[in-house]
């Protein structure tokens, strides 16, 4: 029987990888979501077509399948070596959630009332100024609560990286379980609690953003 501090210190070895994958995936998926979301409201048919294709492919297949696919296809099929499997994981998670989040970006931009666009045209703002000063600031506050929800989804997705051999929280949990079978309830409960503790700030962020996005907005 291992003791609780024993299990805890074993699991803590994986915290760094989990957090690293989480932070890198959040950064990359946010960038992808903004670029893809803006591309989908573009007037250029080619740009909307290509990004539409990307979004549907990644939303239509499963993340776990994509993760395996990238980890075998990048070195095997395309001869691309990213140096570390961390980058394979980050790439798969970011492309997947970037596709999902680009839909919020697109939806929020389209939800800004048409009168705002018309007014900025009337005020002789350039297309860039219109986006930068009028549309995006209003769209962002609509995006934030959903964005927070996706951050929690990304955290949950990081648990998959142990399947391609990364040494994250779950990896150390499984290692510990394989040698201390009778401790497995403690191991997995502790793991769930650790994930929940990481999720707490994200939950708080989401709740806060839900309030912020409702504040000072005329409804209807």
């Amino acid at each position, binding site marked *: 029987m291992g003791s609780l501090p024993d299990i805890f210190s074993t699991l803590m070895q994986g915290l760094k990888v989990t957090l690293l994958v989480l932070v890198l995936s959040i950064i990359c998926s946010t960038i992808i979501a903004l670029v893809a979301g803006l591309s989908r409201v573009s007037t250029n048919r080619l740009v909307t077509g290509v990004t539409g294709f990307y979004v549907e492919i990644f939303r239509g297949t499963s993340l776990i*399948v994509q993760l395996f696919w990238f980890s*075998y296809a990048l070195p095997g099929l395309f001869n691309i070596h990213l140096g570390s499997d961390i980058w394979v994981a980050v790439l798969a998670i970011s492309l997947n959630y970037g596709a999902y989040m680009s839909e919020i970006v697109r939806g929020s931009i389209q939800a800004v009332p048409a009168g705002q666009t018309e007014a900025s045209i009337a005020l002789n703002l350039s297309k860039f100024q219109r986006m930068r000063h009028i549309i995006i600031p209003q769209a962002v506050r609509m995006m934030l609560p959903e964005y927070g929800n996706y951050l929690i989804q990304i955290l949950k997705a990081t648990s998959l990286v142990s399947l391609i051999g990364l040494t994250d929280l779950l990896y150390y949990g499984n290692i510990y379980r394989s040698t201390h079978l009778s401790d497995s309830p403690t191991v997995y409960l502790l793991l769930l609690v650790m994930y929940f503790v990481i999720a707490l700030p994200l939950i708080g962020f989401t709740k806060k953003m839900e309030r912020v996005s409702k504040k000072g907005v005329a409804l209807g």
Partner: protein
Amino acid sequence: MNWSWTVFFETIPLIAKGLWITVGLTFACYLFAAVFGFFWVFMSRIPSKIVRSIFGWIAEFIRSTPPLVQLFFIFYAWPVIPVVGVSLNPFVAAILGLGIHFSTYMSEVYRSGIESVDKGQWEASTALNLSTRQKWTKIILPQAIPPTIPMLGNYLIIMFKEVPLASTIGVVAMLHIANDYGSQYYKFVEPLTVVALFFLLLSYPSAILISKLEKKYNRKFDKKAMTS
């Protein structure tokens, strides 16, 4: 390792066999989640504030922790727990694990439906002296659930894409077959591509169907709101 079309075409019938298991498992998990979702709704309506907040946090806990870890807990840890522990076969473990995880999402959908029912409907049922049971089954739920059908359909597609997690505890569905084939012949990319294509083939048309349904429902329920 290069792309081989022979392997690609060879694995299609193999993986197609797993497709039905994936689809079947999806429906089983979904049914469980749909029924169990009402449990959370019920718990969130108990008069005691302490009980409500305890169950609220339990649901939040389940919702924001990884389903994979929950699956491992049910499959590996549950049998070890004294007295209550039982060994589950991978299918049952997957239905329980994914079902409970997604029930917390389903309950949110139900809740939004229930909250959207006009306050007057509640008052009218009280005024008509309906029992609690009659109020829920005859007045509230028939109005609360239909507008959420597109959202419920979306969750079916989301769950379909989460079901391959079950391959990690040994459910032999599409992903498991692909990985088995891969480790046998050291050809992973082709079978995994086939799996991805099957997912796309099913989920993309369903997503289009759901969004059509959504538009139809929006019109239908908006009209109702306007005339009332």
